[in-house]
Structures are given as structure tokens and as C-alpha cells.
């Protein structure tokens, strides 16, 4: 009994994000002109999974009390790269996918090394590496274009058994293959410890540097998966500064909506994924209520503002003013 209560309180933020998402998506799909159909879900899933993967990338770093402002740039860079190398026959495409994922790992490793060995603040370091990654993306694709291996793209953006969106299955697979083993490993626990208190973790003999490095590398990997998936959705690569910027900012919003603390040490990638899906649904809600698209950015901003103000409700539980300044 007490065990259950503990598990519940540990995952309260994730559950809350899940419930909010389900409610919002229910409102969305019941008001959709086409109703709750496999098509509606598939379109929403493809859009949501893109942000969910970027948010997952952000989560790895945020848990260690860092921040990665280059996720958007890595996302754009791997998108451009994929539009060059994930082409041709099945074999060359498979090699290309491996190349894209390795590039993501390498970008993450560069971030990690600069933050850990260079001892720079993550927020500034990743702004700078983000500029470099975006520059490389522009080298690859000065103008939008390119191609992608069709069968793979169709398989991953289509439906499994003509009901379930394949993108959601892929996302679940990523969670099961990467997130859950990571969360349960020593390194994963070390990442949470570093996020709670780097000093305490260091003094308890936790491998601080290794944990941080793995977090940045995994962040690069998740961002490259998102870039790959964008290529599958759009069939092309584009070095779009707007895309990079908005995905970086939205990933932070999604992470917060998903109950991951920006101060580090708490939250989970699963929460961030629901945060991302929720954020996407907010954007789509206006569409089904037939409101002027002109009002959509304002509506989205106000909902974001309201959501984080509710998140600040901790304020009303404070007994001693000094607790505020922790």
C-alpha cells in the first residue's frame, strides 16, 4: 500500500500531464469535423511525435540541471543530413539512418565535452554550438530540397494494422529501448543525483562527469531521431532557422508542461512526451472550434502562461517566506 503511494507521488507530475493530454485530446477529437477516426489520430500523432522526440532530448539534459538550447539546431541539422543520405536502396538507406543517428550522438558529445571539460555554462555553450550546427545545416542544404527512402518513410508515418499510427509505435519503442533502461541504470540514477545536488553527488562518489556526458549524448541521439522523422514526414530537408528556434523553445515548454523541473533532479521523459503531445493539441484546439487562425498564437501563448502559473501553485503551500528563496 505504502509502496503504491510512493510510486504515485514519484510520478504525480507525469500522471497529471497524461490526464491533461487525454482530456484535451478527447475535446479535440470529439469536435473534429471528421470525428474520432484513425486518420485524425494519425495526423495528430505524426505532428506530436516530432515535438515529443525533441522534448525527450531536452529532458535528458534538464534532469541534470542543465539546459540544451541547441536541440532545435541538431534537429534541423540531422533533417538536412537525412535528406542526403537516407536514400537509394534499402541497404544504403539503413546505412544512412545509422549515419544520421551517429551524427546526433556526435553533436551531443561535442555539447557534453564543452560543458564538462570546458566547464562552460550549458545555456551559453549550447547557444554557441547551436549556431555552429545550424551553419552546418546550411552548408548541407542552402535551399530546401532532397529526398528520402520512400518505403521506410511511408512505413513510419503510416499505420500499423490500419488503426494504430506507426509513429506512436516507434515512439513507444524509443521509450522502451532507450528511456526505461537508462532510467534504471546506474548512469540514469547518477543523472538524477547530479540534478538534485551536484556537490552532494560528487561527494558520494557518483560519476558526475560521466552522467552529464551521457545525458548530452542521449539528447543528441533523441534530437537526431526527431530530425530523421521530420525527413520522413516532409520527404525533404530544410535548414530553417524558424524551425530550429521554435522547436528549441517548444521543447522547454513541453518539458515544463510534462512536469520535469528546470532545476533538475525530477521528472521523466514520459511526462515530457505527454507535455509535448498536450502542447500540440492546444495548438490544434482552435482549429476545431472554427476560430479565426489569427488568434491561434495568442491563444497558445495564454494557455502556456496559464499552465505554468498553475504549476507555480507551490507558492500557496509555503509556510516560511525563506523557503521561497531556495
Amino acid at each position: 500500500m505504502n509502496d503504491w503511494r510512493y510510486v504515485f507521488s514519484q510520478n504525480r507530475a507525469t500522471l497529471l500531464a497524461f490526464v491533461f493530454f487525454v482530456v484535451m485530446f478527447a475535446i479535440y477529437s470529439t469536435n473534429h469535423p471528421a470525428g474520432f477516426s484513425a486518420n485524425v489520430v494519425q495526423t495528430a500523432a505524426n505532428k506530436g511525435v516530432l515535438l515529443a522526440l525533441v522534448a525527450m532530448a531536452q529532458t535528458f539534459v534538464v534532469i541534470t540541471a542543465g539546459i540544451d538550447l541547441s536541440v532545435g539546431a541538431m534537429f534541423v541539422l540531422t533533417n538536412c543530413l537525412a535528406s542526403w543520405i537516407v536514400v537509394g536502396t534499402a541497404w544504403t538507406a539503413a546505412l544512412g539512418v545509422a549515419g544520421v543517428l551517429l551524427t546526433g550522438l556526435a553533436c551531443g558529445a561535442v555539447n557534453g565535452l564543452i560543458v564538462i571539460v570546458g566547464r562552460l555554462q550549458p545555456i551559453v555553450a549550447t547557444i554557441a554550438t547551436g549556431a555552429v550546427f545550424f551553419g552546418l545545416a546550411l552548408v548541407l542544404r542552402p535551399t530546401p530540397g532532397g529526398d528520402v527512402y520512400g518505403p521506410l518513410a511511408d512505413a513510419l508515418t503510416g499505420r500499423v494494422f490500419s488503426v494504430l499510427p506507426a509513429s506512436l509505435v516507434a515512439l513507444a519503442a524509443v521509450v522502451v529501448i532507450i528511456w526505461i533502461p537508462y532510467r534504471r541504470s546506474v548512469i540514469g540514477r547518477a543523472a538524477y543525483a547530479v540534478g538534485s545536488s551536484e556537490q552532494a553527488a560528487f561527494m558520494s562518489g557518483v560519476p558526475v562527469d560521466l552522467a552529464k556526458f551521457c545525458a548530452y549524448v542521449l539528447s543528441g541521439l533523441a534530437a537526431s531521431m526527431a530530425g530523421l522523422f521530420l525527413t520522413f514526414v516532409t520527404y525533404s530537408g530544410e535548414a530553417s532557422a524558424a524551425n530550429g528556434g521554435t522547436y528549441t523553445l517548444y521543447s522547454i515548454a513541453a518539458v515544463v508542461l510534462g512536469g520535469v523541473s528546470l532545476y533538475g533532479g525530477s521528472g521523466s521523459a514520459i511526462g515530457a512526451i505527454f507535455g509535448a503531445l498536450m502542447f500540440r493539441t492546444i495548438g490544434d484546439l482552435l482549429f476545431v472550434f472554427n476560430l479565426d487562425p489569427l488568434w491561434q498564437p495568442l491563444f497558445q501563448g495564454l494557455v502556456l502562461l496559464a499552465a505554468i502559473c498553475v504549476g507555480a501553485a507551490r507558492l500557496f503551500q509555503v509556510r516560511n517566506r525563506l523557503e521561497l528563496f531556495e
Partner: protein
Amino acid sequence: MSVRAQAKISDGLLKRVDRPVVIAFACIVALLLVGSLYSRSFLSPEYLLQQLKVASFLGVIATGTMIVILLGQIDLSVPWVVAVGGMMSTAATGWGPAGEALAIPFGIACGVALGLVNGFGVAYLRIPSMIITLAVNAVAQGLMVVHTGGFSPQDSSSPAMRTLATGDLVFGLPNALIVWAVVGAGTIFLLNRTTFGRAVYGIGNRERAAYLSGIDTQRIVLIAFAIAGGLSAFGGVLLAGYASKAAQAMGDAYLLPAIASVVLGGASILGGRGSYFGTIAGVILITLLQSILSVVQMPEAGRQIIYGVVIIAMLLLYGRESRTR
């Protein structure tokens, strides 16, 4: 004067001038020398004045960013607060003579209002600044989209704004540069000679300690964010005057350079440490770097890469944190 006294004086001087500020100014000189190898005109007074004029827009915006960074917070709402400043001042210009006269203060006031929302969220609701300023940025964007789409306001700037940003009234010095000098002098006074400034540094070092020493930290944070919002919007007003019109994405190119120039000037992103001279050096450095890269006709891709590499290289020179122990 004995050798010892001399050593003492130079030691005192070294202590007063931060190492990062010296390195940043040295890098500016080095950049100019490298540029002059490419073309003599990099050392001409006209080119340098032109660069200072362009730098003053970033300078005004970076001033606000710096005050917020000194608190240990960050302001990600810069892009759309700049746009709000520009767009609301041009909109006011379209409301007749009274609006035209009040265009500049009105634009700044809108920025102050958004800054107050930021500050209230950070100081009183205790929301992390990174996320509340992000949300305010989104709301400001939404407001401007509705504003342009729904009311189709005037987007060309008033003569006063144009004079402020492009004219030169005194000794051929660009007005924009004089504006930046006034803003800068005010900021230096505010940070070094007033209790408000001392409180800002105190909060940046440790808010809890500042609170316990009797500073109303929440009010200081609120005011600091309001000032930052006002300065961002003022930057937008100047930019609208410079381009003689306001546009929606006009602030997008200013967020990262503003943060980069503050940090390159030696301010700690964790707060409590940094001087305004550093920010001046950082702003000039970033502006020169961008200008030289565009003069040598570097393609956009190369510009981005060099820009990022230079920031990292400079920070590795002097911006490193101490090791955990």
C-alpha cells in the same frame, strides 16, 4: 615615486579592470587588425562610426539583458518585446498628432508592461524566469499577430523616431550612439552608485542572503525586469526608426547576440558578477564580428559557424567555471 608604490597603483588598476573586459577589448583590436589586412577601410573613422551606430541598437537591448542576467535570471522574451516596442510606436504614429508625439514613450511603456508581467511571474509567483519569459514572448507574439491582422495599423515610423535612430545632431556623432551613451551612463550610475544596483548584485549572488539583509528582493526583481522590458522595447523603437518601418520578426535576430555579448563581456550567467564595460566590449565585439564576416562576403553558413566557434573559444579563454570539489 618608489617602485613599490608604482606596483601598488598598477596592481590596483588591474584589480579595478576585470580580466575579461581587457581580453574582450583586446579581441576587438585584433579583429580590426585582421580586418585591415583585408581592406584598409576597416580602420577608417567613417566605418568605425557606422559600426558604433549599428552596435548601439544591440547595446540598448543588451543593457536590459545584462541587468536581468546580473540577477541570475534570463529574459527570453526579448524578440517579441523588441517587436512590440517597434510596432506599437509606429501604430501610435498613425493615431494623429498626439499619437505621433507620444509614439516613443508609448512604445517603451508597452515594453515596461510586458516586463512587469515577467517580473511579477519571477519575483512573486516564483516561476523560473526561463519559462515565464518564454510564455510572455509567446503572448506578445500572439498580441502582435492579432494587432496587425485585425487592425492593420500603420507600420512606418514617425520623423522623431527616424531622427533619433539615423540622424546626427552633435559634431557628426550618430544620435543612436548618443542614445546608447546616455542609456549606458545611466546604467553604470544605477548599478554602481545606487542601492538598487547594489541590491541587484546582491540578489544575483544569493537572493536569500539579500532578503535577510533587509532588501525587498521581490520588488527589486520586479523593477529590474520592467527596466529590461522597457529597454528591449526602446531598442525596437530605435530599430523601427532605423529601418523606417516596424515588422513582426524584427526582434528575432537580437536575443542570442544580446545574451552572447553580455556573457562575452565577462558577466556570469549565474548572476552577481559582471560590469557594464564588459557588456559594451561584448556588444562592439559581436557587431564587428558580424560586420567583418558580411564584408568579406562569407556565406550565411560560414558566418554562423565562425560566430559559434568564436563565442566558445573566447569563453574557454576566460569564462570557465570552477571545478566541483
